[in-house]
């Protein structure tokens, strides 16, 4: 392959893992590699540097190589790629970074993974133990800096402890509410000899989150479901994190009860968008019918969502007349923002299975006449066709671009990721997902720059699938250095850039809420994306006319390598509907409010 480095004149002895020594001892670095193999890690994203060189030295080479290392171009890219890999596969993403800047560059990715509950394991080099605290070259207090943006972290000071820490790290990152962990390994600890214990030989991990919910609570919810007049399922990323069984049980339960269902941006795909009970996404840019149904319901069943402020709007007016049940694996997510009448602590798949079983055993009853009236009401709201936009023959509307992308890719083996901003919300509105793990986006932290590296991670997990990153040009530039990684990895990722020249969501807020003072939201010197693509060995396409759009998309899809499609869209389009921050669900905007201080809102 052309992407291999030039062969050195003397390759030296091939590195091996496992111990060759009579005493069975291994170096710390070898222990790391052995532990990763024992946890079936096949891909690692990383960037080498002085303090992690012993580990890079122990990476297996040649035919014995079961671990593929992806050389990113910036550590933030490694983290987001690992997140993309993890969210597309359900397996933890693994990252190697060096000390100091290697770790500080990882912080955004760790915080992102913490917010969105993504299992990521970062192994960072550190200066030798005897230099810690001396302000050594490339020294940073890595466990201190990452404490609040990891689920847990460790500074390992004894080679004999590496194995146990790595096994714990996999357990903690992947169980309960998943999250990122960081293992900081001083260079001398990587070099010293120690003993390796495989995972099975270790004691049971003490961290054991509650998986099976209290049966009485489940029974109560089943009872509430029988009498509810205006029920709704409100589901989130927890359903996807819980695994395929959770989505399967959710579908059974929704279809058996006939209750409407909406989801957060994190949970799209757990219930199919083509399902007849689907109300689309809810929240600040969610559908009119989903938000009004949440506002007007009398029973809300939250499964694995966390009442984010982008969902609730004004707390005091959030779904004022409903009983609320919340199924969640994280005890701290229950009653954090919204006080619920019924908290059900447990895994989503197990809880839904038990709920379905309890509800059926009790007779599988619902309040049918009331439910019929509820659906009539919802259909009236639906008739508003809230995502409608004014098409334009001269310019590509971003919504139109996504509608066409949906039409031309919906039957393909497709994964979608996004950056953050208007394009992200339009993508959530106009693309439809039938299966879990097919859509990902930075939901909690809202990290511009997430989408491109995460598309690489997805592509490495699914080399034969179509992976599209929906981007705004501003977000996309934040991690564009990974173009080089895509070429080295032969990753044919498609970058669908809705280019309006603005920081679009910032411009939208400035227009709607800051009297049109467009302070610093215009980029006057964007690159020529086609030339940029060429410079990196990609294909670049530009399109600016609606009648040329389909061909441009087909061009992108049929090209075998990575592509930037620079789709020039209407510059000043706003994303509607919109619930302004701090407003209740029933005060949505469908167009910019009339001038004047008081925004004109639609109150239902």
């Amino acid at each position, binding site marked *: 392959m052309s992407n291999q480095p030039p062969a050195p004149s003397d390759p030296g002895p091939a590195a091996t893992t496992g111990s060759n020594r009579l005493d069975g001892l291994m170096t710390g670095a070898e222990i790391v590699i052995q532990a990763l193999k024992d946890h079936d890690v096949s891909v690692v994203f990383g960037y080498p540097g002085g303090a992690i060189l012993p580990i890079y030295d122990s990476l297996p080479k040649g035919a014995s190589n079961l671990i593929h290392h992806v050389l990113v171009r910036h550590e933030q890219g490694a983290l987001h790629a690992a997140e993309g890999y993890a969210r597309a596969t359900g397996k933890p993403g693994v990252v190697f970074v060096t000390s100091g800047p290697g770790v500080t560059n990882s912080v955004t990715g760790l915080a992102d993974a913490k917010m969105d509950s993504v299992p990521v394991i970062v192994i960072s080099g550190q200066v030798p133990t005897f230099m810690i605290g001396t302000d050594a070259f490339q020294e940073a207090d890595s*466990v*201190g800096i990452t*404490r*609040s943006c990891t*689920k*847990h972290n460790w*500074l390992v000071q004894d080679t004999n402890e590496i194995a146990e820490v790595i096994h714990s790290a996999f357990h*903690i990152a992947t169980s309960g509410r998943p999250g990122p962990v960081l293992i900081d390994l001083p260079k001398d600890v990587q070099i010293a000899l120690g003993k390796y214990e495989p995972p099975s030989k270790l004691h049971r991990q003490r*961290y054991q989150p509650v998986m099976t919910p209290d049966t009485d609570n489940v029974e109560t919810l089943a009872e509430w479901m029988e009498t509810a007049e205006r029920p709704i399922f409100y589901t989130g990323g927890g359903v996807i994190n819980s695994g395929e069984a959770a989505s399967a049980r959710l579908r059974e339960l929704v279809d058996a009860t006939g209750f409407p269902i909406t989801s957060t941006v994190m949970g799209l795909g757990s219930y199919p968008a083509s399902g007849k009970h689907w109300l689309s996404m809810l929240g600040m840019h969610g559908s009119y019918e989903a938000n009004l149904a949440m506002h007007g319901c009398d029973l809300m069943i939250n499964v694995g969502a966390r009442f984010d*402020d982008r969902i609730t709007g*004004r*707390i*005091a007016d959030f779904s004022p007349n409903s009983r609320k049940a919340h199924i969640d694996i*994280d*005890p*701290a997510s*229950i*009653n*954090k923002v919204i*006080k619920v009448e019924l908290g059900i602590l447990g895994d989503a798949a197990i809880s839904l299975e038990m709920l379905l079983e309890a509800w059926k055993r009790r007779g599988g009853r619902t309040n049918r006449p009331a439910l019929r009236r509820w659906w009539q009401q919802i259909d009236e709201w639906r008739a508003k066709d809230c995502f409608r936009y004014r098409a334009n023959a001269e310019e590509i509307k971003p919504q139109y671009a996504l509608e066409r992308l949906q039409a031309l890719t919906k039957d393909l083996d497709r994964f979608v990721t996004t950056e953050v901003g208007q394009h992200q919300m339009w993508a959530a509105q106009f693309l439809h997902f039938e299966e879990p793990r097919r859509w990902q986006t930075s939901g909690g932290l809202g990290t511009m720059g997430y989408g491109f590296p995460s598309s690489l991670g997805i592509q490495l997990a699914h080399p034969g699938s179509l992976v599209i990153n929906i981007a705004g040009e501003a977000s996309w530039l934040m991690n564009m250095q990974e173009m080089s990684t895509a070429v080295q990895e032969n990753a044919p990722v498609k970058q669908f850039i809705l280019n309006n020249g603005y920081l679009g969501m910032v411009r939208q*807020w400035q227009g709607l*809420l*800051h009297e049109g003072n467009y302070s610093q939201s215009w980029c006057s010197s964007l690159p020529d994306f086609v030339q940029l693509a060429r410079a990196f060995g990609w294909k670049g396409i530009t399109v600016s006319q609606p009648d040329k759009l389909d061909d441009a998309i087909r061009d992108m899809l049929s090209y075998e390598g990575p592509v930037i499609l620079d789709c020039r869209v209407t510059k000043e389009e706003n994303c509607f509907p919109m619930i*302004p*921050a*701090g407003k209740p669900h029933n005060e949505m905007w469908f167009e910019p409010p009339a001038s004047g*201080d*008081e*925004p004109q809102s639609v109150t239902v």
Partner: protein
Amino acid sequence: MSEMILKKGSSRKSAYDLRKDQSYKEATHTFSILVDNEAGVLARIVDLFAGRGFNIESLTVTEVDHTGHRSRITIVSTGGDDVIQQIRAQVQNVIPVHEIFDLTTDGPSVARELALHVLKVREANIEAARAAAQAFQSKELGVGAGCLVFEQSGTPHEIDELFDRLRPLGELEVARTGVVGLKLPQ
């Protein structure tokens, strides 16, 4: 949450975070937390409180099990019911935490604080100072010249009271440990 309160001069620009929270009553709770005594464990707890805006009124910590290497942390905090419930849930999520009790609500418990009062005192006030200390069963430590040192254990309120009685009698300084507490067997 209460009505949005717009400060004078501010606009309606997404001002939902300007609202004053006044819908619930705050109460003081004492938490007893058993943790693995490993490097950085106190920082994990303190960072959690600081990062989520929970109060720390006092904090004590030391290893209580030298073979199993466990430490007990006692934290006094103030907040509404929802904050107190969040503190418990968030602390429980910290990996090296074994258990957390809310000594204020989880059944019978005991809580005490230790203080050292150092009083640079004029001859004429010595008897008055000793009488005050005795009223609080404080022990006089025979250290230092020209000053009295009282060791007092009691509730934070009792320590405040003795402090107030000693203060007029000379130059007074105090060091306090913060509350230590424990759940009682039921």
